[in-house]
């Protein structure tokens, strides 16, 4: 159907735009937030000069991300003399692509009815509605884990094909660490799957639109413990600072991407920053109700006490999209807060933390959830 094609092309464009923007902005946000946290000023030098004038647009250093990108594109693309140049060339893309693909199953809004949004096109769309998600798969959550696991291959390829001791050591660390934490992540989400009874991401989000007691029916209300474990495991999966053993600068120069330079190295960094946004989006979808706000439905807000705000379809769609982006941005900021607050683990502590602390806790959480579900539903 040509209508489906148009709508999904728009969705894909939106998703890629959002991810790239987040990736670019987070490089700046990370530096600026770290600076504000430690009584410094932070990146504020890059500027655009308006042509033919002396007006310099600094905008709090917002253009530093662009300056970084230009620098990486113009740098010498150094290549080590490796026997496996194909793996060497393809590794950054193997890291980068799955990170983008994960976003395909994450719903970034509610149900979209393009006919009501554009009344002049109502006839052409013929009453079709679309969930605001690139691919509504039955196996959505499983796909997240399938593609999330693929980044390990990229890291291992990069380390293995660099012909460098440090890169190889970093890749081995990355491999063992990511596999360990992937397991924990999967186990923490299992409890959630039991509660929702589905792995379809859009269903999961829809089920979180209601209320439980006085609280919104978000995953974090049912599974606060799993939410904490999931976030910790996801940060470990992203190999950022409390868990950045694969690239420990003091020991391994730069870990598995030691031998990469210019934009190939930039791809690794960019993938890391986009993964921050992806983790935030996943956490929002699973635990924070995705684009839902409390008391909000497809017709507008309905507060207790009979007070209602009716909203047009366009306003509802815009609110949902903005709410989702806002939650994601807040979580990104929280991850950066963690990265600039906590000291790094030792390597044995990282693995011990995964296998002896988080895995048993995740299992206990799962058992408790199973018992609770059994007691409630028989």
């Amino acid at each position: 159907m040509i209508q489906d094609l148009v709508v999904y092309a728009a969705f894909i464009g939106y998703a890629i735009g959002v991810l790239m923007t987040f990736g670019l902005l987070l490089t700046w946000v990370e530096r600026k937030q770290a600076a504000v946290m430690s009584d410094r000023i932070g990146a504020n030098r890059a500027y655009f000069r308006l042509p033919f004038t002396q007006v310099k647009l600094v905008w709090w250093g917002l253009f530093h991300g662009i300056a970084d990108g230009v620098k990486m594109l113009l740098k010498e693309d150094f290549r080590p003399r490796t026997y496996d140049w194909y793996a060497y060339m393809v590794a950054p893309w193997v890291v980068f692509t799955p990170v983008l693909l994960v976003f395909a199953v994450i719903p970034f809004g509610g149900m979209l009815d393009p006919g009501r949004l554009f009344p002049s096109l109502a006839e052409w769309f013929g009453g079709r509605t679309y969930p605001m998600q690139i691919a509504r798969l039955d196996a959505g959550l499983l796909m997240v884990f399938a593609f999330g696991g693929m980044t390990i291959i990229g890291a291992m390829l990069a380390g293995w094909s660099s012909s460098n001791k440090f890169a190889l050591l970093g890749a081995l660390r990355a491999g063992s660490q990511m596999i360990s934490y992937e397991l924990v992540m999967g186990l923490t989400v299992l409890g959630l799957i039991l509660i929702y009874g589905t792995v379809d991401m859009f269903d999961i989000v829809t089920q979180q639109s209601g209320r439980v007691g006085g609280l919104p029916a978000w995953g974090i209300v049912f599974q606060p413990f799993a939410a904490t474990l999931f976030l910790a495991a996801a940060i470990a999966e992203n190999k950022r600072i409390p868990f950045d053993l694969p690239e420990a600068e003091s020991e391994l120069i730069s870990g598995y991407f030691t031998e990469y330079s210019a934009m190939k190295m930039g791809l690794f960094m960019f993938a890391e920053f986009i993964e921050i946004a992806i983790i935030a989006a996943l956490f929002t979808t699973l635990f924070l109700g995705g684009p839902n706000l409390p008391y909000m439905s497809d017709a507008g807000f309905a507060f207790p006490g009979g007070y209602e705000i009716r909203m047009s379809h366009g306003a509802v769609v815009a609110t949902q999209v903005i709410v989702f982006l806002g939650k994601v941005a807040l979580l990104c900021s929280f991850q950066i807060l963690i990265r600039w607050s906590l000291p790094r683990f030792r390597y044995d502590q990282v693995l011990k933390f995964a296998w002896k602390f988080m895995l048993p806790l995740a299992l206990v959480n799962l058992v408790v959830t199973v018992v609770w579900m059994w007691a409630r539903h028989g």
Partner: protein
Amino acid sequence: MKKYTYVRRRYWNEPTMSWWERAYLFEILRGLAITGGVFMRNMGKWMTGRKGALTSYYPEETRPDYAAGNRGKHVLTQRPDGRPQCIACNMCATVCPAKVIEIEAAFDPDDPAHPKYPSRFEIDYSRCVFCGLCVEACPEDAIRMAKEVPDFPSPDRTNMWLGKEELLTWNPQRDVAKPYPPAGGAAG
């Protein structure tokens, strides 16, 4: 041969952690609360138009509170008639570990007491290490260091030279710590 077994040394003030600290999660939350609190405080300052940082915007803004003994920009002292007190003996240039001082001597027939004077006295601040050895070495108290640093952030290292004219622009009368002319009647 006796088998060596490693025994970890116990110190009298060995750090101990309570179970609360060993549970780790609560201490993490405490740490995040501290850093997050600092972030909110500074962000609040920035958003209300105040400065939420201790740093100064260096090239645009210099701090006035250098220590009195700070070794900053070089200064050539003057005789009462305004000519440099330097006699171009080259001792500062010789002792300089970074070899940044260049002096060209000239002959002044009008002043029989000090016939030798520098026609050129230049310092390359791109290489100066601010060690103060030139001040120590000078037999005539002709070179001193002011506490202010030279205002020199520049994208081009060839711009970072100071010549005799700039080095002489300091008014030595204002330096109460070192009276001028120096006690003992060496000047004149």
